[in-house]
């Protein structure tokens, strides 16, 4: 009895994985046609990107500021508080900006995507489109997916820059690290490689988070409870997958 239940659980997990993978392939096939409808895409970039701007900028500022504070406290024990700029820039570019942006994106934009598409499913809008021979994958799912993929690297870049200025604000204005030293040490140690590592990560996270959000919405139970559950699953799966992928990508880049 128990083993049967466990087997079912395992099978259900496998089915879900396969369903996501197939969904990704279908979505990728629809991406090029979706680019031909820039109006739809712009709306989704606005929803996923522009409307996440405030939360991303605020979070970036405070993450950068706390990085400046903690970094300064730690580094001045070794008498090397000049390395604050280096520590803050590398920490932000490589890890904090991509990961925190992805987590915030999952909470801010991912949930909106899932519940929107889930409600479309629950109110039979998707079925109605299918009946009219309009492919909902192309007109509903693909633009939302692409919008998320495009928005994520841009949000990450904004997060990095704001965070760096936050660290500079605390380190230079509050703690008295020399401004010239802060920037020259940063410029001396940051490589184009570090910037591209962060961007590559954010692109992968963008694909992962958008895919999960759109997939969960598209395949949610067409009930109020089902949409709620799908939204929860989006946040959990996106967050865990982001952190897992982060480790894999970091290992690959180092």
């Amino acid at each position, binding site marked *: 009895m128990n083993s049967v239940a466990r087997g079912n659980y395992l099978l259900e997990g496998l089915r879900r994985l396969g369903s996501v993978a197939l969904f990704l392939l279908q979505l990728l096939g629809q991406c090029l046609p979706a680019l031909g409808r820039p109006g739809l895409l712009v709306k989704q*970039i*606005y929803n996923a990107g522009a409307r996440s*701007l405030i939360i991303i900028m605020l979070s970036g500022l405070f993450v950068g500021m706390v990085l400046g504070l903690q970094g300064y406290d730690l580094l001045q024990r070794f008498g090397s508080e000049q390395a604050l700029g280096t520590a803050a820039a590398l920490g932000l570019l490589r890890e904090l900006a991509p990961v925190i942006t992805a987590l915030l994106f999952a909470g801010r934009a991912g949930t909106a995507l899932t519940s929107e598409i889930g409600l479309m499913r629950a109110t039979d809008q998707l079925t109605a489109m299918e009946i009219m021979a309009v492919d909902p994958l192309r007109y509903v799912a693909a633009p939302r997916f692409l919008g998320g993929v495009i928005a994520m690297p841009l*949000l990450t870049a904004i997060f990095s820059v704001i965070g760096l200025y936050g660290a500079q604000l605390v380190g230079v204005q509050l703690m008295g690290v*020399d401004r010239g030293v802060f920037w*020259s040490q940063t410029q001396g140690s940051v490589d184009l490689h570090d*910037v591209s590592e962060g961007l590559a990560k954010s692109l992968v996270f963008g694909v992962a988070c958008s895919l999960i959000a759109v997939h969960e919405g598209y395949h949610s139970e067409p009930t109020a409870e089902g949409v709620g559950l799908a939204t929860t699953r989006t946040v959990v799966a996106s967050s865990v997958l982001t952190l897992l992928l982060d480790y894999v990508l970091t290992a690959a880049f180092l």
Partner: protein
Amino acid sequence: MRANRTLEIGTGLFVLLGFAALLFLTTQLPASGLKLGGAKAGYHVTAEFDDVGDLKVGSPVTMSGVRLGEVSGIRFDPKDYKAVVTMRFDPQYSQIPEDSFASIQTQGLLGGKYIGLSPGGLDTYLKDGSRIDQTQSAIVLESLINKFFANYASSKGSGEGGGTDKQASQGQGKDNSGKTESPK
């Protein structure tokens, strides 16, 4: 139509911000990137050093521990094989004696390099384009250690084990290539 317009403006703003941030990260952060931003006010003074260590553009120039300006350029002089450092002084520090002494020093034990000035005694002051003649190079920790080993080995005499001898000769070799200074 109206809603569509604000939507497009918002998206445009977001994309613009995103690409501006990307541009900043790729061009301004790595040292190889191009530098934007106009020249700051102040006057420029040059000084020649034998060795600048890891002095960087933007490193502070101080006197008595107070920041007077910053390093605005480092280039190599192919004629007499020296590093020429250009410093920008803030305009309010206009009365620095012309025969001041510039040395490259280290912040903390492992910190970055900066230029420390000690005042001279002349009544003529540094002005835009003038040169500081008396300079002292950065102290490179490795050559200091090499020198120490060389002295240590020679003071011990030649009767000791081969290991120290080998180290000593290596140290001296490096020393000779750097400066013409006869080992003791």
